[in-house]
């Protein structure tokens, strides 16, 4: 078991190194940060540019730059953002809570709704309720996130009368109304802040969770259907257990293994998939930062983000593989 983990960890580390190389080469294609310098100051001379390039090490070929980057990373230095003029690692860390805060709530809603719905769908297979849920799942799978988000914005943020509109940009308002006065957000009492934050969260959270419900629900349904066919369920029924005990104790316990693993596997996807939703709702998280970093040729920051996302994916795939062995005693690893 331990041998397996160690061997796999080394393999995954190797994959991470390859990804870092590929991503670095691709990111150098994006363009010089010098273009931004030029657009900010049209009077800049070629000499100043050359000096800047030399200072930043940009006059070297990409391959050499990659090795310099890698050496610095081994020393714990991920570079300095060109847009923020700050070290990129603390920048990334400062954005992670914002993304996690939204995604954790989404995850909670999805788990609380989709697993019961999936079980119900499986125990009432071919009922009209099952058909309706199946149809809704198809719809949810086919709806593009950004379009559904835009429709939600239209329906709740644009169309209603002014006082019923929900906010759809950022995490909180600059100013809130309290006792009939408009005061800055920071000066407001805590419950006003909480209400304001919940209001800002409603639209993005609803958009993503309604769309992502479908996947886990269908997965729970098929996992349950698979388990219900097994001999031990027939045995449980034959010895006269109540249907509730059969489903929720005997069947669910076995169905939960694939469900749990798919949940663990989907965690890195939450971060990677947050790009569009955060961009749409102006949510200052990791996804929005990586988009802005790429768009402003800020490649140390983009590189940091991409490495963070790949690291998450690699680690969570490893965890999924190992958790199979822990959750299911029938699986052993050599």
């Amino acid at each position, binding site marked *: 078991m331990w041998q397996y983990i160690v061997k796999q960890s080394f393999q995954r580390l190797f994959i*991470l190194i390859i990804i870092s190389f590929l991503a670095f080469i691709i990111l150098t294609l994006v*363009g010089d940060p010098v273009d931004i310098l030029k657009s900010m100051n049209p009077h800049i001379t070629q000499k100043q540019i050359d000096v800047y390039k030399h200072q930043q090490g940009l006059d070297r070929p990409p391959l050499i730059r990659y090795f310099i980057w890698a050496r610095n990373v081994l020393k714990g230095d991920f570079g300095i953002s060109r847009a923020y003029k700050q070290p990129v690692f603390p920048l990334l860390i400062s954005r992670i809570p914002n993304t996690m805060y939204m995604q954790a709530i989404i995850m909670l809603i999805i788990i609380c709704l989709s697993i019961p719905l999936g079980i119900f769908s499986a125990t009432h297979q071919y009922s009209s309720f099952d058909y309706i849920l199946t149809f809704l799942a198809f719809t949810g799978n086919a709806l*593009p996130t*950004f*379009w559904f988000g*835009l429709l939600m914005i239209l329906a709740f943020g*644009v169309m209603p009368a002014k006082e019923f509109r929900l906010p759809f940009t950022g995490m909180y308002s600059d100013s809130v109304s309290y006792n009939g006065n408009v005061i800055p957000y920071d000066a407001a009492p805590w419950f006003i802040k909480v209400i304001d934050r919940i209001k800002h969260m409603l639209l993005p959270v609803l958009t993503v969770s309604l769309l992502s419900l479908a996947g886990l629900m269908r997965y729970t349904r098929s996992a349950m259907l698979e388990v219900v066919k097994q001999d031990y369920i027939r045995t449980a029924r034959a010895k006269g257990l109540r249907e509730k005990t059969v489903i929720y104790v005997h069947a669910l316990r076995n169905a939960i293994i694939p469900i749990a693993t798919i949940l663990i596997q989907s965690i890195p996807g939450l971060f990677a998939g947050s790009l*569009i939703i955060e961009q749409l709702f102006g949510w200052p998280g990791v996804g929005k930062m990586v988009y802005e970093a*790429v768009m402003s040729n800020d490649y140390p920051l983009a590189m940091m*983000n991409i490495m963070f996302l790949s690291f998450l994916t690699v680690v969570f795939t490893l965890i999924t593989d190992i958790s199979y062995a822990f959750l299911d005693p029938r699986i052993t690893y050599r």
Partner: protein
Amino acid sequence: MKTPEKPNLMPDGQPIPEPVCTLDEMDIGLEALETTSAKEYTYAQMVLRRFLRHKLALTGFFIIGILITLTLLANVISSYDPSIAVIQDRFIPPFSPGHFLGTDDVGRDVWTRILYGGRISLMIGFITAITGGIIGALLGSASGYFGGWFDSLMMRVCEVFFSIPTLPILITLSKYFGGSPWNIILIMVVFGWAGTTRMVRGLVLQIKQYEYIEAAKAIGCSNSRIILRHVFPNTIAIVLVSMTLSIGGAILTESSLSFLGLGVQPDIPTWGNMLSNAMNFMWNAPHLVIWPGFFIFLTILSFNFLGDGLRDALDPKLKL
């Protein structure tokens, strides 16, 4: 001590009789046997019967057919030009005479742009999915069949493609190469073949254990013959299904890139960049947001229905 090679003799010392037929003929003979042993229906007939009973798949098939016909006949159906601005006709609401779905911010007819945009979006979807599917099927078959170093190499490459965050990389690449639909297709194919490869490989590993492969090996078929005649045809069903499903995926990715302002350049209409443009006029013309997204949704939904129906129809274990 090395035993001298025995001359070609049967175990009882008799000379080997002349072969009745050549190896190739034997191979064909086996296949002929397989087809004659089928009961009332051939495979294709069974697939067709099952497919025709799948109502959702038929619906999807018809919607896709209608969409393709409409977009191909765009210049016949609509008399407007998709890219010429008519400033005095800005923001005409939908269902007005002359402009079925209204006009956009510079007075271009939305219905016309949906039709022309559909051409590009569907083309990108089809070409990306088919190219990616073929590359994935070939690499997956070879990887699963040969195993060894080639297989481990392919699997490591696939893992790299699975672990790399696709969207930021796609954004980066389309920022650099973007603009023309062909570059977007190329970028999406490069990042889209790994899934099919891994799936086909798994399937091939399974097929490899079947008796008919052993039989083909025993009668001396070459590797390429076994892959092309015996392994590859058995993976076609699953490749076809995954291609169908990934057409929708490719259209979605293209529209996401366009939505972020990085897909096909704005003067060529696609559903994605129409939507991206519409976002700027959400307050005064909300209808602009609805139509392009609706067509993306309808297309993806239809392809998902079709793919689902194909999977049910092609799976021989599923008897109706």
